[in-house]
Each structure stands twice: as structure tokens, then as C-alpha cells.
């Protein structure tokens, strides 16, 4: 069959850019809006600052942190996405969520001008995970949804699994606050 009518080119329009952080979990690259990252810390700084929590239904969370009167749950992002096990070297404290995300590395900070909705063919959990996909330097990167790491049900399970003396004291942050 000869080549048929080509796909229509994407209609150009006025573009705004959004600052994003490209980060790695193992070999996989992801993007996250920098506006949704409140703080970046070294995972080493968790030592002594984090408590243990075990909820059998939420194995991707093993630690929690107290931050400003709120309990944050540390999500192992490799476990969340079903990627090969990774300990995580950095922690992203995600703004307006109760999630602290363990990742392996920051690739770079950049900006995106287009976010394409996740194709409807992808119709399972990934629809909660991603805001969409973006093309950067001829590579397609999934843009994660900050609220997509812990569902309301998972938060209830984790809250119920917290140790009874969890309310004692707040931790002092030693991370670097991101300015927008």
C-alpha cells in the first residue's frame, strides 16, 4: 500500500512554558512540575528523622516524616511504578500533598511548552499517575501527577498504621527549599 494521507500536523498556538524537574528512577526518566516540589532533601537526612510505618496493603511506604504538623509518607517511587527495586537517594517533598517521594537522581531542570493528555488507550492506574506526556529533545517523558502517588484509601490505611506515639515532636528540615 502506498503511503496514505499523513496525519495532520499539530496546530501551533500561543505557548506558555512550565518549569519542570526531570528526574530518574533507575533508568526511567520522569518529569514533575517544579511548582509542586516544596523541598528537595538527601535521603541520608532521613536518618533519625523518619519513623517506621508498615501497612501491608501499601508496601511502597516504609517511612513517615513529620513536617509542620503534618505527617508525610515517604513513597518509594520504584515500588510505586513497578520498576526494579531502588533505595532512592533524594527526597522530593511534594507541595499540597502528604507525599515525600524517593527518587534516584535529578537529571536537570527545564521547561515544557506542551503537555499531551495521556492517550485513552492507557486506561488503568497510570491515568492517576500521570498528568500527561511531553516531548523533550525528541524524547517522550511522562509528567507525573503529585497527587497520584497515594490515594485517599492508601492514606487512610497508612494513618491507621502509624505508631501511637507518632504525634511527638516535629522534625527539623535540613533540605533546600525550592523557590519559584
Amino acid at each position, binding site marked *: *500500500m502506498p503511503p496514505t494521507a499523513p496525519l495532520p500536523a499539530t496546530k501551533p498556538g500561543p*505557548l506558555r*512554558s512550565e518549569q519542570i524537574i526531570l528526574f530518574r528512577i533507575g533508568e526511567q526518566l520522569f518529569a514533575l512540575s517544579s511548582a509542586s516540589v516544596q523541598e528537595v532533601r538527601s535521603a541520608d537526612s532521613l536518618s533519625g528523622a523518619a519513623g517506621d510505618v508498615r501497612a501491608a496493603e501499601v508496601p511502597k511506604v516504609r517511612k513517615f516524616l513529620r513536617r509542620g504538623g503534618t505527617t508525610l509518607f515517604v513513597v518509594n517511587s520504584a515500588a510505586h511504578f513497578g520498576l526494579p527495586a531502588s533505595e532512592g537517594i533524594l527526597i522530593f517533598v511534594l507541595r499540597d500533598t502528604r507525599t515525600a517521594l524517593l527518587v534516584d537522581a535529578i537529571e536537570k531542570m527545564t521547561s515544557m511548552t506542551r*503537555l499531551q493528555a495521556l*492517550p485513552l*488507550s*492507557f*486506561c488503568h492506574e497510570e491515568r492517576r*499517575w500521570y498528568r500527561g506526556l511531553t516531548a523533550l529533545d525528541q524524547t*517522550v517523558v511522562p509528567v507525573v501527577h503529585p497527587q497520584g502517588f497515594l490515594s485517599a484509601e492508601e492514606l487512610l490505611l497508612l494513618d491507621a498504621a502509624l505508631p501511637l506515639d507518632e504525634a511527638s515532636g516535629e522534625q527539623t528540615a535540613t533540605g533546600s527549599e525550592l523557590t519559584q
Partner: protein
Amino acid sequence: MTVSAELDLKSFVLLHLGERRFAVSAEDIAELVAPSRVFRFPHRTPKMEGVILRRSRIVPVCDIAETLIGKRLLSRRFYLIALRHYGQRTEWVALPVTGECELINAELMAAGGSDEPHVAGWLSHGGEVIEVLNLEALTPGPENSLLASTAREQLDVRSAPGSEAEARP
């Protein structure tokens, strides 16, 4: 009046998957393209391999071979880019195929009650009876009940034609 006019011929694209041939309505085909890099990312939807970039558009890649011939494709020669309907919405999906495709005119014979859901009908061509594929049944997609919430997600990223969206925090 010619015989072909009486038969109400329709156009179909024949595609190869291994040794077998299948047909898709030509109305639902956009183009046949050479294989390009598949970008993969974590997800939970069976059959979905990832996405390709085509004319600045991100197109999902769906391997239908396992359903149709019982095994995944180890090699592919082209991607047949087809139109997939989701209720009122439509999107392109890239189907890996193993050989050249052919545009034919043939009469569609309706599927029977015992046919698989992915069989839209049958046609006869070159002495062979060929399945006409129903892409809506063959490729993944949200249930109708989820389409409304999906539409809301699209709005959240300010969907423009072709699901392109302007980025915003």
C-alpha cells in the same frame, strides 16, 4: 449496473501479522509508517508497548498480535496508524505489522454471533477469508462509564484539538 456496484464494495486495508492477514476498514487508517523509537514508561495496561512520536504528535503503540495470532511480534516492518473511537472521542493508535499493507475493495460479510468481539466481519479476497477487525474491541480503552471522568482530565490539561494541551502548573 455492474456486479461490483450491486455488491456494495467497501475499502479495506489488509495487514500482515506473521503468516496471517487481517483487514481494517480503510476509513479508520491514517498512514503506514516505518518503525521508529518506542518510548516506554511504567503503566498497567496490557498490550500497550509505549508511544512513538509522529509529526509532533504522541501516538500510543498497541501490539495486537498476541490476541490475533497468539504470540508477540519479534520483528516489525511498519506501524499502521489507525483511528480508535472512544465514544465521541477519537485518537490515533499505532499497530505494529510485519509486512506491507494492501488497499482493496471487498464486500463485508457480517460477523456471526459466535465470532470473537474483535471480529467486525469477514471478507473474501484472493481465495482467502479474512477477519475484519473491530479496533474498539481489540485495543484497550476506558469503559464508557469512565469516559466522562477522562473528559474532565483532558480539561485539566487544557486540551486542544488532537489532545495537545498547553502546559500550565
